[in-house]
């Protein structure tokens, strides 16, 4: 096994001082926005995306990943201390975490969340390191038909595992693909759907869509109903766990890590689904399920481990296949493309320092998070009193400068307003923007692989079911589609997402 050599390579690039700095900035920003309710990791990464182009690719990706898993950490602090999930993935933690805090065990709850997350992050990072190279080796043998079918599977699955109406989510995927096709056709150099604007010849900038659809809409949602947050600056002491408590959380942390690592790779599933699933499992197998909801420490340990493990393993499809499964990985793939890289299975081999650097930095970032979160908890609590109306002009200003700095093209800024308005209208009508960004990123690849497949097969669509691997993907896709049309699944699905809200 050359895994040790590879990890050594990762450490050598990730430990460079500037990389450590960006890892630190990423986890710090992630914790910050995780703690603050009202702004999530997707919106933050969208807003900061343009600024990452001033960095080298590895630093940019390290920072973006740090924001994502940092937010999972930070979200639990808010959930435990003020019963308000800073992040949707921490919603379950609030149930028992807040009860623990009321019983004066806030310190134990926070320590459980932090240590459980760190353990889960370490294991999941190792899983990424072990699973990614063989997976990408398999993926390297995929031809165009396999890729096309796999992308269809990924898109359909992400739609179904995400919340909201299925037809609306499908429509958002298709709309995203169409928007991704705007601009010059890659094979024939013909201009498509540009309305005659030469600015659109290279396609719609992902930064305009990202900032508009995720950043702007999140701000607009928060402006709808401005309420004061109760900033109850509690004193948190006794951040240590007793030996009995450690014994109590050991098994839940392990189970949470396993559930999170497995569910994390699912398209669209990710952190929210896994924390919910881990909580349900703990409640089901517990000898005293009646304690859940009244401050059971397992109810904090399992979901917090699960969401952090899922945050790490959700990078596997992106790193090995170049396929985004959630909005954050879609934005990271967008960043890779803008940096001139071609995301896909080649990354592992051709960009080995980058690949292993990201993996190692995830572990370093997790370590930084424990150090950031436990001793500095008082600072984060005080941050909760920063009013939202101070926060969002700052975010808007930074992203405006950032977007302009990429191309020095005012057009990109006008498009932010266009997509902000469209995105907000669609959200108000019950259409979530995540499927759209997945479609947008995959659109050009999808068309490309379809065309190549059709050239291979001389125009016969049978190629997708004649090749065994491709057939497998198609069967799974159809099975998933059939599954959601079952009435019992429809009602279950609604239940799950209602409880999540």
């Amino acid at each position: 096994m050359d895994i040790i050599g590879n990890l050594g390579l990762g450490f050598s690039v990730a430990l460079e001082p500037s990389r450590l700095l960006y890892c630190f900035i990423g986890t710090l920003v992630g914790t910050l926005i995780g703690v603050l309710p009202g702004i999530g990791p997707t919106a933050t990464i969208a807003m900061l995306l343009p600024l990452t182009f001033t960095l080298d690719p590895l630093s940019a990706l390290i920072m973006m990943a740090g924001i994502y898993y940092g937010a999972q950490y930070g979200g639990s602090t808010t959930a435990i201390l003020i019963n308000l999930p800073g992040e949707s993935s921490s919603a379950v933690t609030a149930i028992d975490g807040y009860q623990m805090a009321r019983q004066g065990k806030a310190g134990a709850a926070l320590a459980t969340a932090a240590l459980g997350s760190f353990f889960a992050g370490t294991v999941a990072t190792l899983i990424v390191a072990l699973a990614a190279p063989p997976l990408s080796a398999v993926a390297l043998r995929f031809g165009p038909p396999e890729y096309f079918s796999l992308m269809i599977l990924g898109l359909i699955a992400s739609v179904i595992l995400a919340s909201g109406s299925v037809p609306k989510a499908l429509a958002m995927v298709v709309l995203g693909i169409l928007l991704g096709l705007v601009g010059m056709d890659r094979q024939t150099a013909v201009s498509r759907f540009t309305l005659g604007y030469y600015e659109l010849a290279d396609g719609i900038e992902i930064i305009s869509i990202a900032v508009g659809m995720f950043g702007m809409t999140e701000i607009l949602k928060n402006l709808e109903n401005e309420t004061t947050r109760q900033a109850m600056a509690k004193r948190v002491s006794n951040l240590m766990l007793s030996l009995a408590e450690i014994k109590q959380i050991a098994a839940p942390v392990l189970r949470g890590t396993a559930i999170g690592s497995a569910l994390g790779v699912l398209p669209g599933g990710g952190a929210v689904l896994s924390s919910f699933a881990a909580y349900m499992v703990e409640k089901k197998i517990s000898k005293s399920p009646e304690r859940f909801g009244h401050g059971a420490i397992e109810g904090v340990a399992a979901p917090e481990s699960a969401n952090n493990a899922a945050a790490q393993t959700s990078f596997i499809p992106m790193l090995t296949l170049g396929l985004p499964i959630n909005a954050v990985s879609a934005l990271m793939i967008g960043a890779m493309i803008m940096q001139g890289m071609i995301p896909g299975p080649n990354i592992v081999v051709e960009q080995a320092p980058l690949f292993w650097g990201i993996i190692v930095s995830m572990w370093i970032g997790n370590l930084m998070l424990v150090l950031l979160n436990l001793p500095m908890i008082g600072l984060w609590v005080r941050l909760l009193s920063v009013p939202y109306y101070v926060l969002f002009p700052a975010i808007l200003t930074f992203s405006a400068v950032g977007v302009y700095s990429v191309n020095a093209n005012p057009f990109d800024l006008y498009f932010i307003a266009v997509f902000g308005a469209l995105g907000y209208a669609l959200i108000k009508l019950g259409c979530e923007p995540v499927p759209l960004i997945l479609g947008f990123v995959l659109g050009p690849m999808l068309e490309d692989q379809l065309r190549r497949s059709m050239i291979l097969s001389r125009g016969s669509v049978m190629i997708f079911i004649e090749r065994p691997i491709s057939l497998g993907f198609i069967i799974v896709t159809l099975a998933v589609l059939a599954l959601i049309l079952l009435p019992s699944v429809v009602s279950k699905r609604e239940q799950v997402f209602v409880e999540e809200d």
Partner: protein
Amino acid sequence: MGINLKDTAAGLIFCSIGAWFIYEGAALDRGTADRMGPGFFPPVLAAILIVLGLIIIILGQRSSDRAVGQVSWRGLFLTLAAPVIFGATVQGLGLIGSLSLTTFCAAMASRRMTLLNALVITAGLVVFSVLLFVYGIGLPLPLVGSWIRI
């Protein structure tokens, strides 16, 4: 129950965008199945989008989820205006002037904002941004723009 305006509106948005892509794509070369032209894939997708739009409208009439919730029109207008203002004035006014307008506009989007607070936040953010972007990161942005220079 009358027409479900929420889902009907959503469906109509998808249908009209689909129709526009079909209209615009009609002039493109379709090619053949084994040599797809630039006009092959988009119209297929656009047709699927229209079908999905119709499904959303039809299914929506049976749904009771019709609430759209409140909208802060002041917030909507000012927040969307901020990047447009920046794009339109950054070369002309330069970073300091343009950013002042942008930040002030964004700050006033909140109903809870007072004029004094907005001015303080604007001043603070402009100074911070100039230090960060021009002197820190070194972005080549003019501090004072072409409209002001003599």
